[in-house]
C-alpha cells in the first residue's frame, strides 16, 4: 500500500494535510483531510468586554476579517438587544458587499483562474497569476489591482481602517459618510459592476467556450448530491448580510428556514478521531457518514449552495446570470462542485450591483448611524454569509457585558465533510490502477477542494488562513519519497 500526502510547504507546524492511500492494485483506498488545532481562543476572549470581539475576531483570519467583523457586530447588537439604525445598516451592508467584490475577484483570478485559464495539468511554473497575466494581458491585471485598491478605499471610508474594520458598534456604525465620500463611492461601485461583467465574460470565453472544461465541471468525479445552506431575504433571494438561513435538499426542496439564533436546533457536530475540526451536519436528517443523498445530513455552504438554496438574486443583472447558470447546467439544483466558480462570479455581480444600489441611496449620508443601547440581554448570535460559507458567531456575557462564552461556526467548517468527500471522489475518479500519478492529476484532485475556497486559518481559529501545498508520494513501507510536486503559488 502506498501513501500520497499532499503536504503544505509552509513552515507552519500543525499544518493542514491531505493524505491519499493507494492499495497494491494502485487504486484509491482512502483519503484523509486533516486540519491542525489552535489553542486558547475562548480563553483569550472570556472576561473581555463583548464589544472588543468585533475587533478581536477579525484577527483570527487574514483572509476574511470583514466577515468576522460583521458577524461579531451583529452578535453584539443582539447581546445588547439593540436594533441597528437604518443608516448604520446601509453602511455595514455597503462595506460588506465591497468586501465580497474583493474576495470573490481575488479567488477567481488568483486561486481558481490558473486552473482554467492556464489549464489544470499545465506546468505549475506557468499555472499562477503571472501565467494569467501572460495570457489575458497586462490591462486585465492592472484592472484587477486597481479594483482591489478602490474597494480598499471604499472599505476604509466606512470601516475606519482598511484591513480590520473598526466601524461596527452595538446599534450601528461609528461614523457617517460625507456627500463627497458618497460621490466617490458611486464612482467606485460603478467600476465594480463593469469588472464583474467583464469577469463573467472571461469565464464564458475561457471556460464555457471550452468543451473539455464543461465536461470536467459536469463530470461525476466532481459531483455530490448534498443539502445546501444559504442566507436569503424575505423573497428568498440571496443576501450576504442579513436574513433567514434556508436549507434545501438534493431534490431542491426546502428542508428548513430558520433564524440565525436557532442554529443549534438545526446543526449538530460529528467528530472523527483523526481530525481536530468537527463535521457539522443537519440534525433533522442525521449523520450517516461521508455519503451524499437525501438521507445524509451532510450539507454545503458555498457560492453554489447559496444559489441552490435561494430562489434568485435581488439585482437585475445578477438575476439574469442566475437564470443562465441553471439553464446552461441543466436545471436546479446544480450538484457539480466545480460550478462553484461560476456561482462565485454570479455572486460577484450581485455584490457589485448591490454595493452600487446602496452607494446611490438618497439617505446614505444620514448622520443617524447608530442607536445607543439601553439594556443588555446577555446572549446573542450574529450570522452573515462569508464568501466561503455561512458564518455563525454566538456570544454569552454576564450582566456587565463581559464575555463568558464564545462559539463560532466558520464558513470552511460547514464544508468539512463535503470537502473530504469531494477529495475522495476526485481521487477515485482520477487515480486508476497502473497509471502514473502526475502532478497534473494531483492538481486536479486539489481542484475539488479549491472550489470551496477553503480557509483553514479561520476554521482552526488561526492565521495565516492559507495552505500552500506540496504533493508528496511516499512509500508507506519505507517512508521513502517516491515523487513530489510543489504547489508554490
Amino acid at each position, binding site marked *: 500500500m502506498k501513501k500520497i500526502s499532499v503536504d503544505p510547504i509552509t513552515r507552519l507546524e500543525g499544518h493542514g494535510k491531505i493524505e491519499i492511500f493507494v492499495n497494491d492494485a494502485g487504486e484509491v483506498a482512502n483519503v484523509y483531510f486533516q486540519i491542525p488545532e489552535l489553542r486558547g481562543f475562548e480563553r483569550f476572549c472570556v472576561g473581555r468586554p463583548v464589544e472588543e470581539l468585533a475587533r478581536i475576531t477579525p484577527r483570527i483570519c487574514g483572509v476574511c476579517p470583514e466577515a468576522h467583523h460583521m458577524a461579531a457586530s451583529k452578535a453584539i447588537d443582539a447581546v445588547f438587544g439593540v436594533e441597528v439604525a437604518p443608516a448604520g445598516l446601509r453602511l455595514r451592508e455597503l462595506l460588506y458587499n465591497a468586501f465580497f467584490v474583493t474576495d470573490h475577484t481575488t479567488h477567481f483570478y488568483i486561486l481558481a483562474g490558473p486552473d482554467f485559464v492556464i489549464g489544470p495539468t499545465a506546468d505549475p511554473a506557468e499555472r499562477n497569476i503571472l501565467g494569467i497575466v501572460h495570457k489575458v494581458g497586462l490591462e486585465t491585471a492592472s484592472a484587477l489591482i486597481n479594483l482591489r485598491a478602490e474597494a480598499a478605499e471604499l472599505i476604509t471610508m466606512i470601516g475606519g481602517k482598511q484591513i480590520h474594520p473598526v466601524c461596527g458598534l452595538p446599534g450601528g456604525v461609528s461614523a457617517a459618510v460625507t456627500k463627497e465620500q458618497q460621490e466617490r463611492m458611486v464612482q467606485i461601485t460603478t467600476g465594480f459592476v463593469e469588472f464583474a461583467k467583464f469577469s463573467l465574460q472571461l469565464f464564458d470565453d475561457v471556460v464555457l467556450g471550452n468543451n473539455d472544461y464543461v465536461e470536467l465541471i459536469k463530470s461525476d468525479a466532481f459531483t455530490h448530491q448534498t443539502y445546501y445552506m444559504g442566507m436569503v431575504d424575505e423573497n428568498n433571494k440571496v443576501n450576504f448580510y442579513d436574513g433567514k438561513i434556508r436549507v434545501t435538499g438534493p431534490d431542491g426542496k426546502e428542508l428548513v428556514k430558520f433564524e440565525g439564533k436557532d442554529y443549534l436546533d438545526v446543526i449538530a457536530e460529528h467528530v472523527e478521531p483523526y481530525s481536530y475540526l468537527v463535521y457539522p451536519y443537519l440534525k433533522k436528517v442525521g449523520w450517516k457518514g461521508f455519503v451524499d443523498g437525501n438521507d445524509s445530513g451532510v450539507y454545503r455552504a458555498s457560492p453554489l449552495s447559496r444559489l441552490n438554496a435561494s430562489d434568485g438574486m435581488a439585482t437585475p443583472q445578477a438575476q439574469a446570470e442566475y437564470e443562465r447558470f441553471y439553464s446552461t447546467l441543466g436545471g436546479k439544483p446544480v450538484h457539480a462542485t466545480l460550478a462553484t466558480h461560476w456561482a462565485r462570479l454570479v455572486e460577484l455581480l450581485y455584490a457589485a450591483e448591490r454595493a452600487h444600489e446602496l452607494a446611490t441611496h438618497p439617505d446614505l449620508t444620514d448622520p443617524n448611524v447608530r442607536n445607543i443601547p439601553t439594556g443588555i440581554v446577555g446572549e446573542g448570535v450574529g450570522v452573515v454569509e462569508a464568501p466561503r460559507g455561512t458564518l455563525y458567531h454566538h456570544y454569552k456575557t454576564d450582566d456587565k457585558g463581559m464575555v463568558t462564552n464564545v462559539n463560532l461556526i466558520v464558513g470552511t467548517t460547514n464544508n468539512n465533510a463535503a470537502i473530504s468527500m469531494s477529495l475522495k471522489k476526485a481521487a477515485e475518479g482520477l487515480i486508476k490502477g497502473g497509471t502514473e500519478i502526475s502532478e497534473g492529476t494531483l492538481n486536479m484532485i486539489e481542484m475539488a477542494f479549491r472550489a470551496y475556497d477553503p480557509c483553514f486559518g479561520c476554521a482552526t481559529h488561526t492565521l495565516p488562513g*492559507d495552505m*500552500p501545498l506540496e504533493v508528496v508520494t511516499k512509500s508507506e513501507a519505507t517512508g521513502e519519497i517516491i515523487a513530489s510536486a510543489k504547489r508554490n*503559488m
Partner: protein
Amino acid sequence: MTSTLVLGMGNPILSDDGVGLYVAERLQAGPMPDGVEIQQSEVAGLRLLELVKGYDKVVIVDALRSGREPGDIVRYEAREFKGGHRYGSAHSIGLHTALELGRQLGMPMPEDVTVFAVEAEDIETFGEEFSPPVAAAAERVIDLVRAEVDAG
C-alpha cells in the same frame, strides 16, 4: 535620496507571531534616519504590492517556523526567500510573485527587499505574550534593522 520602508508583519494575538508588529512599534518610537518609514501589516499577498510600491528598499520583519532554535534570526534577500508561513499561500500570492507581478504591471517595485525572520516557538496559541527566546530575539532584531537602514 533613497526611500526605505520597514514593514513589521504578524498577528498580534497569536503569541510569537506578533514579533514583527512589536519590532515595528518599537522602531516607530525611536529615532530613524531621514527617508525611512515604518509600517505594520497583518496580511500579505497582493496587499504587499500596494504597501511596498514606490520604495527603493524594503526591510520586512516577521515570525517564521523553519525547525531552527526558537529565537534564531535569519536574514534573507527576497529573491532567495521561499518560506515564511505568510508568503506562499493558496489564497494570496507569494512575496516573490507579488514583486514580479508589480514589475510586470509597471509599478515601481523596490530593488532591494530584505527579510529578517525570527524563529518562533509558539504561533498556535492565542495570546499577547512572546516566548522567552522570541522576546530576547525581538531586542536583537531591533538593532539589526537599525543597522540595516543606517547602512542605507
